[in-house]
């Protein structure tokens, strides 16, 4: 009776949310001026002479990708005050919490985890990476060796000192974990599989690059520090990590260095954090951070419900990527609004390319041509979002308004499917989605359109954390699934999502959910990773975009817009300070749908 592992098709259940699946696992953040990544601490190679002021604002031969908007966050209207408790509504629970190496960290997870973990690096309002827990990161001329110096005098919540040993243990754990190793595969590893690091003193160590981990084959990776601003750069107490590994500590009772301490975690319901009185950071006026006493994060899957809860005062902050809700709240003077519509994700339908019928370009393109995205948005989102033709959103490297996208052509689609089924028999596509109202409507719409061209469609509703897990392991029940991904400005942020090397025969898990292994895209990604010149890199990114369009690897549907809405009493959103710098942390940088709460306070 036992033949092989069961396919995990789950039932539906949680009634409602309104976004496609979020996934910002290791997002290397966005940034406006990549040269800074190299020139902050060192000099760029001589031939990389692209003047900084031309980047993004005046790109050659592209159809006007919008320049990243750098916004100065509004100053708080009230005097800062300590104390108070706020409730934040987020869209999903996190699976495998809360060890940074293991957690499946989507948007709402980033929101929560950053209150008790700090990253080594964070992105500032100018969209540059800034050392955060690190004091500095020196990059050599080739961008192959990174020397990381840590801030001194910081302790984890349990009293364990944060030093080079702690950081190296974290980096080794994160960079070699099943989940994250693919994202940072070009960091050199030793023969025993651990990350090659050299400790220079108690607070300094080095990392180096190596193609696919090979220390003898270092490659330039100018944008690597952005990766330390993601999940791979979150620092947890080694004491706790060891104890959790040994089964002696609760792996959900996270111990970090963050502004808040995790005090209660009720999966599927809420996470509560309380003020860390000994936090290492003060704001520019010298006020000890953070201000709030307690934050409760509540999982409310349905964005309509989240909106209503904000309106009724049950929530103080609510993040959503549901365009209908955003439209609803954007004009509401009773609430303040952080708009995150740049470098955000693309909503798309992903194909599991390991299915033989989906490996066939004709089938994929037929499925794409069967869908009128403008109409889909009209029906599902009341026309409130912008249709998308490729995997990039405005502001992102590689964004194009004309990429050769095939577009809506149901007759051609029906023809192609007829030809295919004549040869191969009936075609059935299993569409998987989270059981939220908008997503189910999308699913039903697709079932209708695909049905019209002669494809049988079944719909599977799967809870979000399970859906992510199934995608990670390319569950054989998966054919097509609704997805929301690929935030970030650099195409390098997408490397591990799309590169064939992410699919390892040794590991069943891959961040390349669609199992995309296209030689053209692989090569373009490799070139772009080591490219210093921004315009050249943009060219690679645009080629990738065109390749996506001609091969129909995905069906792009719409651009994601995030709105973080909050009660006016919550102040200082967007004004969490960058240490030793007058700028602020950039909310949603690489992690749309999230804001920093380090400096937030409640006005009376």
């Amino acid at each position, binding site marked *: *009776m*036992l*033949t*092989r*592992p*069961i396919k*995990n098709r*789950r*039932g*539906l*259940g*949680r*009634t*409602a949310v309104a976004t496609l699946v979020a996934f910002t696992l290791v997002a290397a953040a966005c940034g406006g001026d990549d040269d800074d990544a190299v020139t902050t601490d060192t000099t760029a190679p001589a031939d990389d002479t692209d003047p900084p002021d031309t980047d993004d604002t005046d790109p050659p031969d592209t159809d006007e990708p919008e320049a990243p908007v750098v916004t100065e966050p509004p100053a708080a209207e009230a005097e800062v005050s300590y104390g108070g408790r706020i409730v934040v509504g987020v869209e999903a*629970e996190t*699976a*495998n*919490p*809360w060890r940074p190496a293991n957690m499946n960290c989507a948007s709402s997870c980033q929101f929560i985890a950053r209150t008790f973990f700090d990253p080594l690096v964070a992105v500032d309002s100018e969209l540059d990476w800034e050392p955060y827990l690190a004091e500095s990161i020196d990059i050599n001329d080739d961008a192959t060796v990174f020397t990381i110096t840590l801030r001194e005098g910081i302790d984890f919540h349990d009293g364990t000192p944060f030093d080079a040993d702690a950081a190296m243990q974290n980096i080794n754990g994160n960079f070699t974990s*099943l989940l994250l190793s693919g994202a940072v595969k070009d960091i050199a590893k030793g023969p025993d599989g651990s990350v090659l690091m050299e400790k220079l003193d108690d607070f300094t160590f080095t990392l180096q690059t190596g193609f696919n981990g090979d220390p003898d084959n270092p490659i330039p990776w100018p944008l690597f520090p952005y990766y330390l601003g993601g999940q791979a750069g979150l620092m947890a107490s080694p004491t706790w990590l060891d104890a959790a590994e040994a089964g002696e500590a*609760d*792996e*959900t009772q996270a111990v970090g260095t963050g502004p808040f301490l995790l005090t209660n*975690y*009720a*999966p*599927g*319901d*809420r996470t509560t954090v309380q003020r860390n009185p000994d936090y290492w950071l003060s704001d520019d006026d010298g006020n000890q951070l953070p201000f709030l006493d307690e934050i409760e994060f*509540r999982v*409310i899957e*349905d964005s309509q*419900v989240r909106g*209503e*809860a904000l309106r*009724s005062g*049950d929530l103080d902050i609510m993040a959503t990527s549901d365009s209908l809700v955003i439209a609803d709240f954007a004009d509401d003077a009773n609430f303040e609004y952080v708009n995150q519509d740049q470098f955000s994700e693309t909503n798309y339908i992903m194909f599991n390319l390991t299915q033989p019928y989906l490996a066939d370009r004709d089938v994929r393109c037929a499925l794409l041509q069967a869908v009128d995205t403008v109409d889909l948005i009209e029906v599902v989102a009341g026309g409130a979002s912008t249709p998308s033709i490729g995997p990039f959103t405005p502001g992102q490297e590689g964004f194009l308004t004309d990429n050769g996208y095939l577009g809506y052509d149901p007759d051609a689609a029906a023809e192609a499917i007829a030809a295919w089924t004549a040869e191969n028999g009936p075609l059935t596509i299993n569409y998987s989605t989270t059981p939220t109202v908008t997503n189910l409507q999308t699913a039903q719409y697709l079932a209708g359109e695909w049905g019209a061209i002669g494809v049988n469609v079944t719909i599977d509703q*799967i*809870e979000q*954390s*399970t859906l992510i*897990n*199934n995608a*990670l*392991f*390319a*569950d054989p029940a998966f054919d097509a699934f609704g997805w929301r991904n690929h935030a970030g400005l650099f195409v390098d942020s997408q490397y591990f999502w799309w590169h064939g090397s992410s699919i390892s025969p040794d*590991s*069943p*898990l891959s961040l390349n959910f669609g199992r995309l292994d296209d030689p053209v895209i692989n090569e373009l990604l490799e070139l772009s990773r080591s490219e210093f010149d921004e315009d050249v890199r943009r060219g690679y990114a645009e080629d990738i975009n065109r390749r996506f369009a001609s091969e129909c690897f995905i069906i792009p549907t719409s651009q994601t817009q995030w709105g973080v809405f909050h009660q006016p009493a919550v102040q200082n959103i967007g004004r969490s300070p960058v240490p030793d710098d007058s700028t602020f942390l950039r909310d949603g940088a690489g992690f749309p749908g999230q804001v920093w709460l380090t400096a937030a306070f409640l006005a009376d």
Partner: protein
Amino acid sequence: MRYVSQRLLQFFVVFIVVTFIVMVATRIGSADPVRDLAGGAVSDQQIARVLNDYPYLDQSLFLQYPQWLLDFVTGNLGYSYTQSQSGLAMFQQRLPPTLFMGFWAIVIGLAIAVPVGVYSAYKRDGAFDRGASYTSFAFISMPPLVIAVALLFLVVTRTSLFPTVGGSSYIAPWDSPWGHFRNFFIPSLALGLGLAAVWSRFLRADMNLTLQSDFIMLAKAKGVSPARVLWRHALRSSVLSLITSVALQVSALIGGAVVVEQFFGPRGIGDRLVFAIQQNDILIIQAITAVLVVGVVLANLIVDLLYAVVDPRIRHARKLG
């Protein structure tokens, strides 16, 4: 005493049968329980970890059962590998909301049913009785889902007093009595109205019988005031059967709670169960279902034992039936 021991024995047999059925049910379609538990498609390390924690999982069900039972009675209520949480901690978080909701539902049910039932019996076939009879019949035909929709449409959307659909969350009464009321009133009402309908009909019928019995006639003849007859004598003799009925509703109450928790919140054990089913988290599914079912069986046992202690005649009658 013989009855008590017999009843206890029966309880244990039923306990074994139901928990075994639950175990079988959670393993349907699971070719590889270890893998399912580890979170479906996962790494070999994860599987090794699960096997290390629960070495019996790949044995046959009959071998698994006694080991699971031993775990269960010693307080090892499973582990959620996807959410990294022990079953015990999960119950601590998720039981209180459901217990409060059930408690308030019963309070609401009784608070409506007792006056209505008694007054209906008192003014039998009067306008009130007839009205109450129709209303309660209608409410009996209203599943919690329908009542929830009605409350949402008629109350929640028309006042700004209560959290909207799905918005209720757990606030302990000792933390904030008002917050507790706001979050629990509507869900409890959704469950309590149905209970009130069942109980008021039950109480009316039961009291009608009592009111015709000899001792009531005697009391009436002796000139005891009608109100006194009603409250002191008739109601008192109906209390026991009412308690039985309360116990019998526990199962229906749990089913209703699952729906209402999904509809309004607060997120109690029913919501956690649905979440676990979605995640294929079979040890947690098994633990929750087992606890709920054992709760029902226990409630019935307690009622039966109460009977045996309080009223030997009824006990005898029940046995005959």
